[in-house]
């Protein structure tokens, strides 16, 4: 048997594996077994005001012990398919530089972040520096740490979202790129604040994940399993819930639900959707989000999130501008010293340059 045939055999084994039942690593959720009654067809609904939020960051300088990032958080408003001009008292975009560096502590190495808003007026929408202290994973490994460089952006997405929710009304929806689960210590505090504010204001909070690592207990992709399971219903667009429900001790808000959604009849994509709803019906909310997914560039994915991604994205030409400004402001001694730090990790960039590849 040749190599290719062996791979085909392995793939077939995996694809034909039993669906199994949903499985979540996190212990904070009640997980529900597959049930075909959990499929609900989406319907045509009255358009709702929706805020779509996304963030982006890119590296200006990085070394094993520090990283300077440029971050941008952006939101837009749509009412169904129509863009809605913001009359909010908050900016639609906030931008800041974040400086992450490594400190030695009694408990090992920790990462601290300092924040420099590009406009001082934007500071109130940003997380506090004292909340941005994370314990670094060991053993020290740069590529594990690089995940930490986005900590400021992730926190800022939550802190800015909390302000956006303040401007939304009962029944409106805030859709954020990604899940409503956290990855960093201290992040829960910010997410909790957003959730409480949403629940208090009757605002529905949704997190839509383009990719999902959720699986079944047989090791299958949970989303792929639901897609297969969905073949037994005739719905053009649907939501499947609950996959899991968050367990919440506090009475200040209910738990969020994890669902799977197919938002447009012509899409092959099924997404994970985390939802913390107010008094509204789940199908009503998902259907309202679905109204925004009719753009032919990506049917089934909210156009508001496409737009948010484009506007939040930090491009290389922007990075170059800041990099030039910062490096040209340094004294020669400091610059030489800095270069030795940077050179410790920038060989990859140099190779890209040789190959005439620019990272975007």
């Amino acid at each position, binding site marked *: 048997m040749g190599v290719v045939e062996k791979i085909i055999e392995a793939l077939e084994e995996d694809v034909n594996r039993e669906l199994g039942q949903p499985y979540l690593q996190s212990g904070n959720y009640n997980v529900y077994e597959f049930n075909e009654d959990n499929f609900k067809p989406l319907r045509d609904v009255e358009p709702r005001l929706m805020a779509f939020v996304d963030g982006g960051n890119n590296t200006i300088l990085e070394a094993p012990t520090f990283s300077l990032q440029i971050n941008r958080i952006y939101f837009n408003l*749509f009412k169904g398919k129509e*863009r809605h001009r913001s009359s909010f008292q908050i900016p639609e975009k906030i931008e800041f530089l974040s400086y992450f560096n490594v400190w030695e502590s009694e408990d090992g190495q920790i990462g601290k972040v300092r924040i420099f808003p590009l406009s001082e007026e934007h500071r109130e929408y940003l997380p506090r520096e004292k909340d941005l202290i994370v314990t670094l994973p060991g053993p020290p490994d740069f590529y594990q740490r690089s995940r930490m460089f986005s900590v400021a952006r992730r926190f800022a997405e939550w802190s800015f979202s909390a302000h956006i929710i303040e401007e939304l009304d009962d029944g409106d929806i805030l859709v954020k790129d990604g899940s409503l689960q956290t990855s960093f210590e201290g992040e829960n505090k910010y997410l909790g604040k957003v959730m409480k504010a949403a629940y208090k204001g009757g605002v529905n909070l949704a997190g839509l994940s383009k990719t999902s690592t959720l699986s079944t207990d047989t090791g299958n992709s949970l989303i792929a399993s639901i897609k297969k399971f969905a073949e037994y219903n005739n719905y053009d667009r649907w939501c499947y819930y609950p996959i899991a429900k968050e367990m919440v001790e506090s009475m200040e808000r209910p738990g969020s639900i994890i669902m799977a959604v197919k938002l447009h009849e012509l899409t092959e994509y099924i997404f994970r959707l985390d939802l913390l709803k107010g008094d509204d019906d789940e199908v009503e909310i998902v259907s309202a989000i679905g109204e*925004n997914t*009719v*753009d*032919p560039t990506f049917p089934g994915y909210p156009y508001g999130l496409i737009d948010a991604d484009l506007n939040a994205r930090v491009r290389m030409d922007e990075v170059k501008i800041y990099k030039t400004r910062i490096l040209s402001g340094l004294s020669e001694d400091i610059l030489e010293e800095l270069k030795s730090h940077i050179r410790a990790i920038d060989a990859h960039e140099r190779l890209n340059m040789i190959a005439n590849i620019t990272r975007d």
Partner: protein
Amino acid sequence: MEGVSIDPIGQIIGGETSKIFIREKSGSRIELGDLLVAEEDDGNYSILQVKDLVYHSQIPQIMRELASGLQLEGHGSHMEFLDEKLRNYIIAEAKTILQIQDNEPQLPKTLPSFFNRIRRIKDDDLNFLMEEKIENPLYLGNVRSGSKELKTSIHVDAKEAIPHHILIPATTGRGKSNLVKVMLWELMDIENIGMIVLDPHDEYYGRNETGLKDHHNQEKLRYYSPDTSNIQGVDSLRINLKSIRPEHFEGIVDFTGAQRDALKRYHNTHKEDWISSIIQEKEIDGVDPRTIGVIKRKFDNILGIYMKNDQIKSRGNVFKTDTGESTIKDIIGHLEDGRIVIIDTSRLTGEAELLVGSIIVGAIFNRYQKYKAKGTLKNKPIIGIVIEEAPRVLGKEVIEKQGHNIYSTIAREGRKFNIGLVAITQLVSLIPRTILANMNTKIILGNEMSQERAEIIASASQDLSDDNRTIASLDRGEAIVTSVFTKFAVPIKIPLFEEHVQDKIRKEDEKPPLLSPQDL
């Protein structure tokens, strides 16, 4: 950007001096040829003209193709582009044609500010045109922005423009005759300009419709026609054969060397009766009778004169032996008095029409040469010659084959003697570049033929290299004036003659009659 006081219809987003990219504000419907204004904070502004329009989209081509497919194949009922106006738009490619600095028009040497917002032109932006002092303003039309007509009118100084020759290139149906009618109507009010108009369609006088005969200044107009029936104020077009000399045929009729030689011999021998002698086949030494036979047939074809019962007859009733001795002299006199003389050549062959013109123009040219020699030319009116299908006399082939004629001579030398051509043609490409270069005002009407457009563009007084599509898309009555006497190639809308003169006729009719001494 703060200088923009009215609704912007676009914004500069890039480009270069010869091609500035303007994103169109959705729904603004920017047109090819539109005049746009980019204001600067200091009050100065640039006038841009749209040369091309291009679709642009933020959506990749493959996505647009898919979206279109979904719609066309019936799958698109639940699909539509969101933010369509933001993502799909039109880019207008424009060129700065003029910059106004401290109210003075200048040729553009800088780019308008990047990201400057653009608005439509308004009449106030063209105040510098109004302020120009034109001594003998010849109205051509109103400034046009795309297909929209402004109130600002465009004039050239008739006494400057005519001796420097005017070319009107256009294909059929684009409004050539209308333009000439409007120009002649306006010239009726300008003193000291004589115009000879060879009118092969008998359309300018207005025999049966509105025409120059309806102008209040009838003193300035003379109309010569072979048909004087049922019409008042017409002079009979009778030209005595004695008025014609051999050189009048030069470059007009294709005679062989032997025939030309025969013409001269007959003229030398029989003086002013030379044509009659040929028709009568009076033999002279050194001329082959067969040559005379051929010339006689040519005269029959061209002049319509022939022998019948031993008498010379005239078929067209224009070239005569017994009358019309003073016609040419009279016409010259009218021209020297600054009158417009319309010659109805509708019953003449093309060659006879040119011959009539040649006789008149040749005579006036000779006189003006003498006036110049005497130093009295400055007291004489400017003379203009309106000629249709100009390549008949100005064409490369004609000149190469038959040598220069009086029209081509005037095209080259007329300016020195205050005589100019108003040449109308569909086929500019037939006219040599050297003559085109001498035509210092061109009123370009619509033209579908790319070769003709290329010639027009190559010989224009301003850079029209980006106007190929614009010229092709000029509608009836729309034109571009390119002239050494205008600051820029001005797009104009020529008014419809009947509408243009209607108000003027009415106003004239409403004027109270002049009081007689008795009334006073």
